[in-house]
């Protein structure tokens, strides 16, 4: 009996391999047919400006082999593995879900601890100068997007108002600091709240005309609003200096006590007796944006437990029911727009201070789309999910920049960072196939009876509108 099962297993195994080889060959053939003209041949200009055809058979061969081997591996190894896991799961139902792993339970604490220690870890491993890239390009860059996405989450995730022009508030905050900081030399610490207030005001200004709109109509109007702000920034040259942008934006000071300009008397390094380096400023900025992020998270969590936060969520679910319960939907929507915009404004003024330069180029529609993509991928309403999505999307983009070895394969003119949209597309497809409600799709209730209990969102009906 045992021998016969083993034999049949073996036969099945051979069978799988035969199928996989066949499938792999087919995939290779199809890839060859698709790519022979798309990749194998390329039109190019030579020195005399003539159009010539460049042949890239090597690259074509690599692509075909990737397709064939990928298909083979998928059929031969991935599919049986998935089947086995499914069978194992069916055999032992719910046994694994009783005790969540230590990592899963303390995800937020561990994540926070890591974030606070991040600069120290990086400096230890790659030295003071080597850490610059990691703190600036990865740490600060990702945290800016985390903050933006958490701000947008209030509007989109909680209140359910689809906003495609969120970058407008980011721009308002950035230009608020850039203009007032360069013109009047006001400190960042005064202009940060000012930028937030300014952006909140614009949030309300945008909010008023679109109060009656929902869903796709709202999306189009907010999209237009984002573009209007950008076009104003480009064309109002007397104030904004047009496409050239504003440079020489003052650095943030250490709460007015120390400066990060090397030439200043009270330079951070001089005061503390450290060797001059640009890293101090970056580390300071890192902690600044981290605190701004935590402020956003704290406010979001608090608001969700307050009447206005509950009203936002109810509004997302059913506007008519909200009104018949005595909720003033006008005010509720406007507060969502204003508070969401305010955090965009904070992030914008930080962005201006970090770059030292702003131009309309930084506030294109693509930015809005990226921020929205992070919110959607992370799972609307979930702070943890959104943070993870931001790390994957923005960190992924930065890692692409690091992949210079790909030039060996694709030739010296290949710039991997241009393929970040591919990464976005891939992440979108993967998340939407396996987790259609985002990375963390379940909504955490704000009111508990005995203990927290998260019901998978798969069991609940989607709200309308």
């Amino acid at each position, binding site marked *: 009996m045992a021998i016969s099962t083993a034999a049949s297993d073996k036969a099945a195994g051979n069978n799988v391999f035969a199928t996989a080889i066949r499938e792999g060959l087919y995939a290779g053939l199809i890839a060859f047919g698709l790519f022979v003209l798309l990749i194998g041949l390329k039109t190019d200009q030579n020195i005399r400006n003539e159009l010539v055809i460049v042949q890239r058979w090597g690259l074509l061969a690599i692509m075909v082999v990737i397709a064939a081997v990928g298909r083979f591996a998928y059929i031969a190894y991935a599919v049986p593995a998935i089947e086995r896991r499914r069978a194992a799961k069916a055999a032992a139902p719910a046994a694994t879900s009783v005790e969540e792993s230590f990592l899963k339970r303390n995800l937020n604490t561990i994540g926070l601890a890591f974030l606070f220690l991040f600069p120290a870890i990086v400096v230890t491993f790659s030295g003071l100068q080597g850490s610059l890239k990691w703190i600036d390009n990865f740490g600060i860059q990702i945290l800016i997007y985390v903050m933006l996405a958490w701000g947008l989450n209030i509007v989109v995730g909680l209140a359910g108002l689809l906003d495609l022009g969120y970058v407008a508030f980011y721009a308002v905050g950035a230009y608020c600091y850039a203009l007032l900081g360069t013109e009047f030399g006001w400190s960042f610490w005064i202009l940060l709240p000012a930028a937030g207030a300014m952006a909140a005001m614009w949030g309300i200004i945008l909010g008023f005309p679109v109060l009656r709109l929902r869903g796709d109509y709202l999306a189009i109007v907010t999209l237009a609003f984002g573009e209007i702000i950008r076009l104003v920034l480009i064309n109002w040259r007397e104030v904004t200096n047009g496409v050239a942008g504003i440079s020489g934006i003052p650095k943030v000071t250490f709460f007015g006590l120390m400066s990060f300009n090397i030439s200043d008397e009270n330079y951070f390094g001089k005061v503390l007796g450290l060797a001059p380096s640009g890293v101090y400023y970056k580390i300071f900025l890192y902690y600044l944006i981290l605190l701004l992020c935590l402020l956003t998270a704290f406010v979001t969590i608090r608001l969700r437990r307050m*009447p206005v936060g509950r009203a936002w969520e*109810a509004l997302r679910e*059913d506007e008519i029911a909200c009104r018949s*319960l*005595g909720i003033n939907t006008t005010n509720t929507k406007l507060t969502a727009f204003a508070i969401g915009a305010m955090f965009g404004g904070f992030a914008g003024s930080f962005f201006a201070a970090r770059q030292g330069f702003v131009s309309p180029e930084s506030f294109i529609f693509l930015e809005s789309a990226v921020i929205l993509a992070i919110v959607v991928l992370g799972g609307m309403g979930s702070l943890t999910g959104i943070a993870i999505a931001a790390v994957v999307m923005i960190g992924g983009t930065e890692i692409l920049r690091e992949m210079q070895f790909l030039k060996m394969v694709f030739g010296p003119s290949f710039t991997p960072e241009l393929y970040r949209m591919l990464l976005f597309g891939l992440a979108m497809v993967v998340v939407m196939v396996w987790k259609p409600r985002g990375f963390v799709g379940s*909504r955490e*209730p*704000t009111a508990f009876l005995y203990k927290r209990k998260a*019901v998978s969102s798969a069991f609940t009906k989607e709200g309308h509108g």
Partner: protein
Amino acid sequence: MAAKALLQVEGVETYYGNIRALSGVTVAVNEGEIVALIGANGAGKSTLMMTIFGSPRARTGKITFAGTDITEMPTHEIARMRIAQSPEGRRIFPRMTVKENLQMGASLDNLQHFDEDVEKMFTLFPRLKERIAQRGGTLSGGEQQMLSIARALMARPKLLLLDEPSLGLAPLIVKQIFDAIRELNRTQGLTVFLVEQNAFGALKLANRGYVMVNGKVTMSGTGKELLADPEVRAAYLEGGRH
């Protein structure tokens, strides 16, 4: 009689675009009464409910509540007059828990009486107590209806508007819900204005009733009178008691 009425709807006409949905509807609900409005599909029953709440707005006519003209008031202000509604299709918040749904109902008073009132809801609808931590969308139809009514009651209303509470529910559940309404009326003197297709159950429950046909009120009387009326019997009751 008209002066004492808690809710007075006088000659109201409501339009959807150019289509007239209500033509000259006059209805009165007195304090402490259960009044039923019965009629066929599309007669305009739900439109009247929504018109009382100001969306859609009445083009002509006047609606007064406790002596105040509410015809032109915004919907949320009308709700703040302590008129509560369990709307057609229940309209609970599906991704929010039962408790959060009830909190939304009590948001007029900023949850001041929440704990006290929630206990009352639990005695009225014990099922909700079992389901308190569950999401609204995971409840059964009957439980959702109970939640919808409980949510409306959390606002401590003077007048409760119920739009088709029996829609799509099993007879046993319908009986439970009607019993609860009767109980509320008897013990707390709650005034209820009820729209129903289930004419038999509604008229048995109600003190008075109105019959609506094509946007007009064609008949009115006490529940018993309407139940006995041959026309009503022929149109709404014969061919099966729901």
